[in-house]
């Protein structure tokens, strides 16, 4: 067994921890850092519940090891709200009923955050394509798509 020291910046805060090589990043976030907003579903990269942003890319945290993020920057769902206020994307999820049971929501929010940073005017089809990386077992993703579309519209007005 090998143990490694990992220093990583998550949501602007530095964490310095010791981890076993085999510790998955998803478990590190939840168990070592206490950031339980990141959810764990399938643990083979299919469901998307554990999606977080590592160095400006939305990725599956169940398919990375904690030791791999040494020296890097990350954002998890806990990093979205500012000063206790939900951000515009989160507010639109509430307004458009994009939550459903809520289990897959953190992953979807993180994928969407990364996606909207790189694509400012996606159409419905693009949004659906991005969402296909997430399994939501509740219903038809309708509220989720609406919440994202509304965020895109709001951003256009703000520009």
């Amino acid at each position, binding site marked *: 067994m090998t143990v490694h020291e990992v220093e990583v910046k998550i949501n602007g805060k530095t964490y310095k921890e010791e981890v076993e*090589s085999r510790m*998955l990043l998803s478990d590190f976030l939840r168990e070592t850092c206490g950031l339980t907003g990141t959810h764990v579903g399938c643990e083979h990269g299919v469901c998307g519940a554990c999606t977080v942003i590592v160095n400006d890319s939305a990725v599956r945290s169940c*398919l*990375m090891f904690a030791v791999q993020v040494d020296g890097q920057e990350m954002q998890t769902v806990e990093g979205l709200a500012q000063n206790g206020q939900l951000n515009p994307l989160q507010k639109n999820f509430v307004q458009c009923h994009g939550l459903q049971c809520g289990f897959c929501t953190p992953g979807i929010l993180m994928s969407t955050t990364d996606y909207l940073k790189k694509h400012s005017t996606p159409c419905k089809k693009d949004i659906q394509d991005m969402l*296909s990386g997430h399994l939501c077992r509740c219903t038809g993703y309708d509220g989720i798509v609406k919440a994202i579309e509304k965020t895109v519209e709001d951003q256009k007005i703000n520009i």
Partner: protein
Amino acid sequence: MKPAQFDYYCPKTVDEALTLLEESGFDGKIIAGGQSLVPIMNMRLSTPDCLIDINRLQDLDFIDYEEGLVKIGTLTRQNRVETSDLIRQHIGLLSEAVPFIGHVQTRNRGTIGGSLVHADPTAEIPLALMTMGGSVHIASTDEVRTVNAEDFFVTYLTTDVMPTELLTEIHIPIWEGRVGYSFQEISRRHGDFALVASACQLSVDDQNRISNARLVLGGVESVPLLVTEANELLQGERLTDSLLDKVASIVSKVIEPESDLHASADYRRHLAQSLSKRTLQEAYVKAGR
């Protein structure tokens, strides 16, 4: 599901990685994007004693253009390949193939080299490399050797890369003249591995006669299948409906697909025929433009 224990190394240079690989012999494994390896480790289908992480080898993350050639570093993320203008302009088949791989969140991490070495028989990048007639560079502490796509894929999940070797570069020739290409696949859901996939690249002369064609099928054999007989038949011809039918019948004759949970052999044969026709037709139309 959690992986078994292993030692972890994170080399900073290619040389260091190669030495580590040699020292660990058959017990070490490279981790690139981890999008195939980590699921397998999480399910304990693979329990390597040691992982050599190549993610810090920035030298292996590049897309370069040379006269007649595009070179791509093994660590280049699939998403970067997908959005590269250089690739779209010179080897557009690859840009067309990559969006079929998993989802944007897995392409953000998955690499071009990892997909080639993983060598799933329905995977998109192996199929595209074979269709474009590409080759790869494989390094060990002793040498760097070049292997053509035709010799690279050995069987299911097995390539010519030995346990102490590292795939470093992918070389793809830029075809001259009027070139067309097409990539198509049928999967049960978007983002899943294909049941059957087909890719075609061809060039035509001034009279719209086919001067070179490569039609390749995925998901019908243990490795991407270059349909040599069909490619020979197409040589010097204009594409007509009867020629397309002939190609479909060759395809049906040369493949031996298997039945599994997802599709019967008959259905795969049917898909292989229609997809072959579709890719050929689309590639031909594109080349004529």
